[in-house]
C-alpha cells in the first residue's frame, strides 16, 4: 500500500547518500589539517627532540642556540608574564565595559559603545604594535628607558584582548534570561544587587570561557609583542625590563635559523601550541558545563 505513484524514492535516497558522502569528505579534510600540523611540527623538531633531553630546554644557561644553549624558560616566563599582566588589566576593564553596555548605558550609547568595541576587535595586531612602537614605547622610554618593555607589551596586549573579553562577556550577560532579571527586580533588588547577585553568577561560565579564549590569544600573539617588548631573553625584574615571548622568538629567528636552531624553534612552536591547547581545552570544558 505504501507506494509512491512515481518512482522518485530511489532518486531521493541516492541524493541524500551522495550529499552525506561529500560532507564526510570535507569534514575528513578539515580533521586532517590538524593532524598535518601536528605531524609537521613534530617532524621538524624531531632532530633536536631525539638528540637532546628535555631537561636541556629547562636547564641550559640561557637561549643562545648558536652556542648550543637552548633554555626556553625565560621566554616561557616572558610569554606567561605578558599574558597574565594583560589579563589582570583586561578583566576588570572588560567587565565594566560589558556591564556598561548591558545594564548601564542608555540604548543609543550602548549600541554606539558596542560598535566601538566591535570596531576595535577588528583592528589588526600590527596596527596596535605599530601604535605601541611609535607612541607608547617613546612615552615609557622618557619615564624609564629603554621603553620597549614588559609594560609596553602588557599594555598593547591589553588593548588587543580587551574587545574579545568585552564582547564575550557581553554575549554571556545578554544571554542571561530576561525572566531572571525581572524576578530580581520584582524582589526589589537594586541595580548592582541584581548584577552581582544574579547576572554575574548566571553568566560566569560564559565570561570565564571568554577570558580563557583571550588568554590563549595573548599567549600566541606575535607581531604586536615583537614590536614593543624589546625581545631580550631574560627573566624581567621590573615592569620596565624588556622580555621575549615564545611567539616573538619564532618570528624573530625563524627566517635566519637552520639546522638545530630551526628545530629548536619548532620545539618552541610545539610548546606554545601545547600551552594554548590546554587553555582552549579548558574553555571547551567550561562551554560543555554551560550547556549541561
Amino acid at each position, binding site marked *: 500500500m505504501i507506494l509512491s505513484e512515481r518512482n522518485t524514492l530511489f532518486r531521493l535516497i541516492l541524493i541524500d547518500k551522495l550529499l552525506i558522502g561529500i560532507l564526510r569528505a570535507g569534514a575528513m579534510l578539515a580533521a586532517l589539517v590538524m593532524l598535518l600540523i601536528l605531524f609537521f611540527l613534530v617532524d621538524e623538531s624531531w632532530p633536536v627532540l631525539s638528540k637532546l633531553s628535555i631537561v636541556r630546554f629547562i636547564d641550559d644557561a640561557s637561549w*643562545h*642556540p648558536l652556542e648550543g644553549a637552548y633554555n626556553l624558560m625565560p621566554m616561557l616566563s616572558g610569554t606567561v608574564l605578558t599574558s597574565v599582566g594583560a589579563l589582570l588589566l583586561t578583566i576588570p576593564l572588560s567587565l565594566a565595559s560589558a556591564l556598561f553596555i548591558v545594564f548601564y548605558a542608555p540604548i543609543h550609547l550602548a549600541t554606539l559603545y558596542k560598535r566601538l568595541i566591535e570596531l576595535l576587535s577588528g583592528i589588526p595586531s600590527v596596527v596596535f604594535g605599530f601604535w605601541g612602537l611609535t607612541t607608547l614605547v617613546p612615552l615609557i622610554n622618557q619615564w624609564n*628607558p*629603554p621603553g620597549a618593555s614588559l609594560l609596553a607589551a602588557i599594555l598593547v596586549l591589553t588593548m588587543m584582548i580587551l574587545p574579545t573579553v568585552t564582547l564575550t562577556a557581553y554575549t554571556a550577560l545578554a544571554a542571561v534570561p530576561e525572566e531572571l532579571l525581572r524576578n530580581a527586580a520584582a524582589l526589589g533588588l537594586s541595580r548592582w544587587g541584581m548584577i552581582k547577585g544574579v547576572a554575574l553568577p548566571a553568566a560566569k561560565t560564559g565570561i570565564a570561557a571568554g577570558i580563557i579564549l583571550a588568554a590563549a590569544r595573548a599567549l600566541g600573539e606575535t607581531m604586536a609583542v615583537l614590536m614593543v617588548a624589546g*625581545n631580550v631573553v631574560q627573566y624581567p625584574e621590573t615592569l620596565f625590563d624588556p622580555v621575549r615571548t615564545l611567539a616573538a622568538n619564532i618570528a624573530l629567528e625563524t627566517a*635566519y635559523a637552520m639546522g638545530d*636552531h630551526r628545530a629548536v624553534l619548532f620545539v618552541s612552536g610545539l610548546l606554545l601550541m601545547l600551552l594554548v591547547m590546554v587553555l582552549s581545552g579548558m574553555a571547551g570544558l567550561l562551554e560543555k558545563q554551560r550547556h549541561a
Partner: protein
Amino acid sequence: QAQTKAATQRLVLTGSSTIAPLVGEIARRFESLYPGVRIDVQTGGSARGIHDVRKGIAAIGMVSRALKADEADLHAFVIAQDGVSIIVHADNPVRTLSREQIAGIYTGRITRWNVVGGADARITVVNKAEGRSTLELFLDYLQLKNSEIKPHIIIGDNAQGIKTVLGNPHAIGYVSIGAVEFEAQRGAPIRLLSLDGVEASVENVRQDIFPLSRSLNLVTSNEPHGWVQQFIEFARSSQVHDLVRAQYFVPVNTD
C-alpha cells in the same frame, strides 16, 4: 606548466638583509634589461642564504661575510665591500669609543653614558638577533660570545637598528656603514663612531683600513650557468656601480 615557467624564468635570492636592498635595485635594473626574467629577493640573514642555496630553495644566496671553512662546497662571488660600525643618536655628545669601552658597554660593565664622557643617562644597548652575520662580525671584533652580551633591545635587520637608535637618544647599536650613510644622507639624526681611531666611512672601507669590514657575496651551490651566471656577472659589473655607491657600499673591480 607554471612550474616550468617559474623554473626557467624566475630567480629566487635569499639571505642577508644587508645585501638585500642593493640586490633588489640591481635586480630591478636586470629585469628591465631582460624582460621575462623575474627576480625575487627575500631577506633572512646570511645563514639563511647559505641554507636555502644548499636546499635548492633559492638559486642564489646573499652572504654578508666571507665563507667559512665548512662552507667550501659553495661558490662565492663578491659584489661589494661593507663596513660595520657603532652608531649613536646625533644628539649624543660621545664621538669615539675604544674597543674596551664598547666591550664594557655591551657586557654590561658600563651602564651610564657619563662614564664614557656622555650625558648622565642610562645606556640602552641594542644587539642583533641570533643568526645575523653582522652579529658574528661584531662579536669577532670584540672577542666576545653572544652569551656575554647584556642587551636591552634585540633587533632583526639593519634598518631596525637605525630606527631604534633614532627613537632613543641614549641607545647604542651597530650596523652596516652603508645603511647608516644612506640614512644619514636623508637627514636622519644619527652618527657613526670611529673604531680604533679610524673614521667609519665608505672611503676607509674602500682603502681596507677600517677594522670591521666584510665582503658582500652572492653564493651558489653549483658552478653558475644560464640566468644565474648572467645575473651574477651583471651584479659584479660596472653597470651597477652607481647602485652600489648609492647604497653606500664599495664596488668591486672586476674589470
